[in-house]
């Protein structure tokens, strides 16, 4: 509780459209801690945008409770409704920066005017505002383009202006709604790395909405997966990537592809009674250990690699292996325990599944 900065409790957002009721958000709770980069992933229409728009009440929920920085923004249940005062909300919104897929800059204002617009109601005088806007544009490396109109800037540059604008009032939270989805891979990585450095340098808490798992993989520390207005799975980045439970999550992280490939490779292979297929996931220290050699030395268990893959999660390598362990039943059990005790997730694949 102490270090949670965003708390959404039992949020429902329903839209009445013609005769039907659309449950865009269907009883979702989400807690984001100070300093998190919280990835929210899911396919288009899952409710990601609606959910984050609830955070700064751009979307008022049908029911639920929204708490940001210990301020109750909104609370509604059967008995009562409580809303933050409109003026208060405007002030507090300035502490929640937001960036969007299509940048949403004022087209008839230059880069620096766009940033100054966000500062209009700050306590700074005009000179100070201009200075701060210049400083922010410098932070996103756009000093030279400060007098350009958005149409004169590339997508990546426009998004950086939008980031400067979002940071204008020294927010504690930054909401990024598909901010890299309209950018090419190079600009995408640049923007993601910028967000990452803002998170590290300023302690900015980031909610990162995306349908691209690569973005989450690069900078997030936590992930929630949304489907049809619900969060179906959530957890630490590594857990989600290495140990996804839900089919959709597995699909998003590519686990299904890997196991499908492994299964394909094993189609014509008959396992003997001394053989088992294992799915191994290793990261951190275990990646440096000669584990297969150890298994052989210690338990006389041989390892055949069927399929392998190494991924980078926040610049840390994560390895996935599908192997056949050959050895006595007891030795195989010992080998499994040994792997687990060395930080390797080892899961037996049932032969029927193969």
């Amino acid at each position, binding site marked *: 509780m102490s270090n949670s900065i965003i708390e959404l409790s039992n949020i429902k957002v329903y839209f009445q459209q013609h005769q039907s009721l659309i449950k865009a958000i269907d009883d979702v709770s989400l807690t984001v801690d100070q300093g998190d980069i919280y990835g929210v992933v899911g396919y288009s229409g899952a409710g990601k945008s609606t959910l984050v728009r609830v955070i*700064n009440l751009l979307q008022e929920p049908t029911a639920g409770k929204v708490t940001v920085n210990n301020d109750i923004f909104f609370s509604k249940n059967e008995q009562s409704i409580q809303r933050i005062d409109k003026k208060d909300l405007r002030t507090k919104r300035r502490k929640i920066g937001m960036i969007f897929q299509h940048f949403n800059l*004022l*087209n*008839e204002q230059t880069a620096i005017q766009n940033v100054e*617009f966000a500062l209009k109601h700050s306590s700074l005088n005009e000179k100070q505002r201009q200075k701060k806007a210049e400083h922010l544009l410098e932070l996103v490396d756009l000093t030279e383009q400060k007098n350009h109109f958005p*149409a004169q800037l590339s997508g990546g540059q426009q998004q950086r202006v939008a980031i400067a604008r979002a940071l204008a009032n020294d927010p504690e939270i930054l909401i990024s709604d598909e901010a890299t989805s309209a950018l090419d891979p190079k600009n995408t990585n640049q923007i993601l790395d910028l967000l990452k450095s803002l998170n590290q340098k300023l302690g900015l808490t980031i909610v990162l909405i995306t349908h691209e798992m690569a973005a989450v993989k690069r900078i997030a520390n936590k992930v929630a997966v949304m489907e049809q207005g619900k969060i179906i799975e959530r957890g630490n980045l590594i857990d989600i990537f290495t140990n996804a439970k839900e089919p959709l999550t597995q699909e998003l992280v590519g686990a299904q592809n890997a196991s499908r490939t492994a299964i394909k490779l094993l189609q014509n292979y008959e396992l003997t009674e001394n053989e088992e297929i294992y799915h191994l996931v290793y990261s951190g220290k275990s990646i440096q250990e000669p584990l297969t050699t150890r298994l052989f030395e210690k338990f006389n268990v041989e390892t055949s690699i069927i399929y392998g893959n190494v991924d980078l999660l926040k610049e840390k390598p994560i390895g996935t292996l599908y192997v056949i362990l050959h050895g006595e039943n007891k030795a195989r059990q010992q080998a499994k325990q040994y792997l687990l005790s060395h930080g390797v997730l080892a899961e037996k694949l049932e032969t029927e599944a193969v």
Partner: protein
Amino acid sequence: MSEFLAKVFPNVLAQGWTDEAGWLTAIGQTFYMTFWSFLFGGILGLLFGIGLVLTTPEGVYPNKVIFNICDKIVSFFRAIPFIILLAFIAPVTQLIVHTQIGTTAALVPLSLGVFPFYARQVQVALSSVDQGIIEAAQSVGATFFDIVFTVYLREARSEIARVTTVTLISLIGLTAMAGAIGAGGLGNTAISYGYNRFNNDVTVVATLIVLILVVVVQVIGDKLATSLNHRSN
């Protein structure tokens, strides 16, 4: 030269310049009517246009009551043909300017005739502002006035210049009809002194002057719309 003119346009010079039927008088009346009714009708239209965009169910300040009232008023006045409005509105004109005929009296129906047209044009122009830009403005704590002025009016200014041009031109057209209530102007010259008296040369010259006016407005309007647009290069 003047001999030639006298031959081709025998009645044009006979109209004189500053008499009641003179050319400068007529041009002055057209300017007078266009300017003032554009000012009143324009302000009214702008207010209604903004009101409609803000209060629509998808707007920033949805309000069914205000939206419906604005919408009904605009639709009502748009539905009345101008020439009928001239007569229909006479009692109101009497109330406001204490006369029912003449150039000043024409300002009331002209303003009321042009405002619904402009309101709809403004509504369309403002609706062209991307919803995402408005949302981004709200996310940095924009106030009502920020949204109206810095977002809607500023972002749509090129579109507004364009629709204002269209409105101004159609208003020049409306002033021609105001002759029906003795408001004078170039339209009146063309009809009363030209057409009705078989002075075709007067009709032609009056029409030419209106045409020049329209072209000038169009050219300036287009230039303005282009120079105010930074959306695309």
